[in-house]
Structures are given as C-alpha cells and as structure tokens.
C-alpha cells in the first residue's frame, strides 16, 4: 500500500534560498517598498524625512486609518466591503464630543475635565460604534442586502447624523484627559517606552522561537540556526530602534514647563532633552494589532471568518452560523471605527464636521495594498497596517517635498492600482 500507481509524489523542485529560510516574500516586498520610500524621501528632503520628529508625526497620523484597516481586513476577507467607516467615525466622534463637552459637564453637572469624563465618553462611543456596526451586519447577514449598498447608505446617513448632532459646529476643546489619547499630548515617556520596547522584543523573540519549536516537534523543516538568529536580530533592532527614535524626539522646553505647571510642580533646574516616547495612540494600535492577529490565527472566530471567505456555502454546511458571523464582523468594524474616532478627535483636540472624510477609501486602500484579496479568504492584519503606513509615508513625504495636492492624490491612486497588479502577478507566479 505504500506505493500506488494512481498517486505518485511529484519530484520536489530544489528549494530556493528564500524557501529554505521560510520567509514571507510578500511581507518582505512590502517592508522593502516602505524602506525604499522612506530613504528616497529622506534623500530628496536632505534628511528632513527621517527625523525623530517626522517619524513621530508619521506614526500618530497613521494610527486612525491603521486601526480601521485591521477591521476592514476581516470585512473584506468575508467577501464584504464597508464604505461607511469614515462616516461612522464622524458619528462616533460627534457622539463622544457632545458627551464630554455638553452632556457630562452640564446636563449631568460633572463639570469640565472631571476625572471620569474621558472613560465614560470612550465607553459611550465604543458602544455606539459597535451597535451601529452590528446593525449594518444584521442588514447584510440576515436581510441579505449587499454590504456595498448597506454601507453606501450608511456613508450618507452617518456623515449627516454627525452633522445633525453637532449642528455642523466644531466642538472643542475636548476633555483634557481624553486628548491624551491623540498623540503628542499623551506619551509613555522615555523609561516606560524602553521597558515596553524590551517586553515587546522579548515577546516577539519568544513567538519566533516557539513557532520554530512547534515546527521542529512535528518534524517539519526549520530555518537554519543562523537565519533564525538574523531574523531575531532584525526584529529586536526594529522594535528597539523605533522606541529609540520616538524617545529621541524631545519635548520642547516651553511645553515641558507647562506640563510641570499643570501638575502643580516646579520644573527642576537644567532639565532638558526629555523625550516623548511611545504615544498612547500607537500603543492602542499595537494592542489592536496583536489581539486581532491572535483572533485571526488562533481562535474559532478567526477560522470561521477565513473559511466563510474561502467558501461561504462550505462554511454554512459545516454548521457555521454565517449570518451571525457577518453581524460579528461588522460589529467589530464599528467598534474599531469608534476607537479610531477617539484617536482622531483626540489628536485634533476637537471634533470637526469633516473628520474622517475620505477615510473609507484610505482604509480600503490600506487593506488592499496590504494584500487583502477582494475575492475573499485572504488577508493579514500586519499587511493592512503596513499598507496604511506606506500610504501615510507617501502622502507626508510628497507634502514635505512640495508636490502639489492634486498630484499627491494622483500618485496615491496609481500606487493602489500598481500594488494590486504586482500582487496579482505574484500570486500567479506562486500558482495560488
């Protein structure tokens, strides 16, 4: 029985170096493109692009789109689309703005900047976003209205609900604690950032190592030891390097004085060169990325999301409640829109009527540039975040170089189409 005439194993093609190293070529390509982009802009701007200040700004500008792009991966993987994320962000932002500047301080008489305001506001916003998302999911999953239509309607509805809620006014300034989640106003500081960087590095190295151990335990081929070491080294340098750069961005002296004043302390004489460290908003993105990656790879929910995208009928026949799954996926998307709304409005320290405009396109583009297939079933969280980073780097780089606004958008559009074309070529070559 060991050999049968009807089934011979095809001769193994000799493995290329890349195959031996078990590297994800797609990921490498994206990282490569990102690095080339950054270095290119840095050369053109004579070193102004890769300064700590600009890296810091780039990070906090990417967060809002990146958070939503993570949710969009799941939506697109299940063969749906969400055109309403920018508008939903605006509605959540408007609800939270009214909660923290009107309802809590005046209607409930808690006064301005009450210590509980920020958390109550966020909970209200997250609940609103999740409920609206779940409602979209109900219309798509149970009433079988195409997601394109439901969210196109949602795009118009939520953008204008936001307008109605605020009367089109800019609402601000927002709660003093709330705006710490936006970026510059709230960072971990140098030592905590280092500590977190070290913890994250250790976790990443452990994950790489245990993945290798698991493969070895099952008798699968593993990378040569030196390759494992190099990969671990690069990972550690990348994480700690990022922390070092953010720490190197120094808080301006004036601002530092005001921070001490706000705490009722006197700034020590000669205190200079205090770095910002990791912004809270970036920390939120890191947590979202880790949690959703675990959901995608290691939970039943994630397995069902990908199975449904690969073959909805098969998923249904396997006993998966694909309708409820659709509700969950859109509810998660709504939750992440609300989270993005926190970060986006906190960064601007007010709610403006046009917040989140065109974000739906940026978010979908980030997911797609990051390798999410619109035909469903394929996509990664880290890809979407890289996609968001690449787009933001392009946009800020061009702005810094002085490219006219219309050309900036034209280039971003071209890059989107080109990225998908390269992806198609790559998949064809892989035969997948």
């Amino acid at each position: 029985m060991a050999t049968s005439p009807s089934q011979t194993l095809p001769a193994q093609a000799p493995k290329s170096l890349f195959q031996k190293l078990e590297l994800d070529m797609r990921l490498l390509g994206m990282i490569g493109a990102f690095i080339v982009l950054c270095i290119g802009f840095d050369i053109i701007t004579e070193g102004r692009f890769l300064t700590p200040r600009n890296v810091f700004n780039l990070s906090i500008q990417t967060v809002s789109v990146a958070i939503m792009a993570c949710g969009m991966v799941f939506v697109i993987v299940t063969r749906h689309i969400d055109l309403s994320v920018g508008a939903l962000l605006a509605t959540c932002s408007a609800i939270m703005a009214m909660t923290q500047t009107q309802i809590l301080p005046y209607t409930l008489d808690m006064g301005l900047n009450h210590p509980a305001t920020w958390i109550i506001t966020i909970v209200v916003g997250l609940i609103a976003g999740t409920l609206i998302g779940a409602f979209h999911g109900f219309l798509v999953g149970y009433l079988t209205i195409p997601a394109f239509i439901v969210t196109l309607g949602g795009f118009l509805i939520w953008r204008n609900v936001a307008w109605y809620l605020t009367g089109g006014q800019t609402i601000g300034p927002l709660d003093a604690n709330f705006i710490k989640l936006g970026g510059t106003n709230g960072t971990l500081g140098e030592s905590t950032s280092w500590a977190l960087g070290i913890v994250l590095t250790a976790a990443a190295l452990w994950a790489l190592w245990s993945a290798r151990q698991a493969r070895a335990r099952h008798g699968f081929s593993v990378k040569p030891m030196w390759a494992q070491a190099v990969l671990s080294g690069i990972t550690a340098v990348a994480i700690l390097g990022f922390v070092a750069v953010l720490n190197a961005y120094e808080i301006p002296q004036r601002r530092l004085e005001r921070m001490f004043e706000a705490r009722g302390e006197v700034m020590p004489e000669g205190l200079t060169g205090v770095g910002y460290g990791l912004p809270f908003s970036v920390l939120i993105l890191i947590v979202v990325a880790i949690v959703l990656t675990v959901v995608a790879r290691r939970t039943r929910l994630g397995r069902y999301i990908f199975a449904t995208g690969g073959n909805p009928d098969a998923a249904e026949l396997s006993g998966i409640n694909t309708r409820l799954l659709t509700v969950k996926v859109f509810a998660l998307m709504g939750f992440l829109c609300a989270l993005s709304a926190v970060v986006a409005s906190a960064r601007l320290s007010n709610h403006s009527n046009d917040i989140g405009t065109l974000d739906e396109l940026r978010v979908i583009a980030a997911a797609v540039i990051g390798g999410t297939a619109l035909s469903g079933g394929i996509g990664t969280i880290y890809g979407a975040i890289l996609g968001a980073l690449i787009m933001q780097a392009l946009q800020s780089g061009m702005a810094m170089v002085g490219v006219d606004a219309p050309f900036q958008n034209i280039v971003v559009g071209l890059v989107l189409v080109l990225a998908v074309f390269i992806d198609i070529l790559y998949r064809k070559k892989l035969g997948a």
Partner: protein
Amino acid sequence: MVDRSGTPLVEMQNISISFGGIKAVDDVSVDLYPGEVHGLLGHNGAGKSTLIKVLSGAYHKNGGQIRIDGKPVEINNPRDARANNIETIYQTLALADNLDATSNLFLGREMVTPMGLVNDAAMEAECRKIMGQLNPNFQKFHEPVSALSGGQRQSVAIARAVYFNARILIMDEPTAALGPHETQMVADLIQKLKAQGIGIFLIDHDVHAVMELCDRASVMKNGQLVGTVDIPDVTDDDLLSMIILGKKPASAA
C-alpha cells in the same frame, strides 16, 4: 443480511421540495436501518442530491417528515443534522479552498486549548492519523486545499465525514474523482463502517458498485421515487431498466 425488523434509523416520509415551481423531489419516502447501505440511483437531475440535502440540513423541505430512531426530528440547518450524528460527503465536497486539510477536517468543530485557542498541533496529529488510513500517500497537510488534486480533495471530504463518529452517513458520489485504488479503499471503508452498525445513504452512478456495496437501492426519476428494491433480488439490468424506463421490474415487484 441486514436485520430490518426493528425501528429504522432514519425514515424520510413523503418528502417534497420545489425550486420556483419545479418539483425537485416529489413525495419521496425512503428509510435506512442500522448497518445498512442504501443506494440512491437515477439520472442527472433526478433529485438524489436534493433529497439527501433535506436530511443534511442544507435545504428546507416543503412537505413530509423525518424520523430518527422512530422519533420525529426537525432538521433546519446543518448544525441540527450534526447534532443528530448525521455526517455528509457532498457532491461538491464543500471545502474551504483557502484553508488546509486539517482546518477543513475540523471546520465548525475545532479542538481548543484550555485557553480557548484553536489547537492546531493536536488537530494536525489527528488529521494525519485519519488521512493515513484513508489515503496513505497524502502529504500536503500545509497547503490550502485549492492546491490539491480532485481525488485528494475528495479524501479530505471523506475523512471529515467519518472522523466524527457518525451514526448516519450520507455519501453523494464519494468516489467520483478517485482512482481505482482509492475507490477500493472507500469500498473497504464502507464495509467497515457498515459492520460498526452505521447506516449509509450512498449515491452512485455506477450500477455495478451499487450491486456490490448496497443492501437496498432506491431509484428516482424526475423527482419521484420509481421504487425501492432488495439488491439480492435484482440484477444489474433490472436496476438499469428502472433508471432508464422509470418502472419497477416485474421480477422484483
């Protein structure tokens, strides 16, 4: 010889289902006893797959009743069918192409670690065990099933149906894509499952295979039941004429 004196494992009584005015299944009654292989035969489009999809929860019947162990049951979706220990190998295989063999085998019934995360290592070990019995040459455990051959995909679908201790097994053309060697292995498997007291509905176009594997056979034509016969009482030609002419042969009437 199968003992058919007790309560049938499955009774499908007067099942009807129509799609937009077309009666795909029209007042069909079949039953199945423990340890029995019941063949379903008929032209393309006769309604065989539609009939068994009512039992597997994929379709809603318009009329009729299903009893299991003599008790009426409601099967409204595939989860209900699984809860009644009904497993199905679909003609279309129903695999998620982007997932690997292990994920497909356990789809909807993943093994989890104490923390509630899916236990891929344990599932793969189980998958290797069952595939080793069904198709020892199967090696592609880490590729999405879209990269498998038709026969390999069919092996995965068969493994999924037999792994979970079914009492009632539905096989819709399980060997359509298999080579002669693998087909023989499925025939052996059917004998083994039968000996364990599992009831099997087997849809197959190969009259010869039905004669060999089945205890009884039902023939359908244009959504209606032509008749049910005991295999020992009929010949290949009798079955063929039932399929073609749509009439029960005189000898078995």
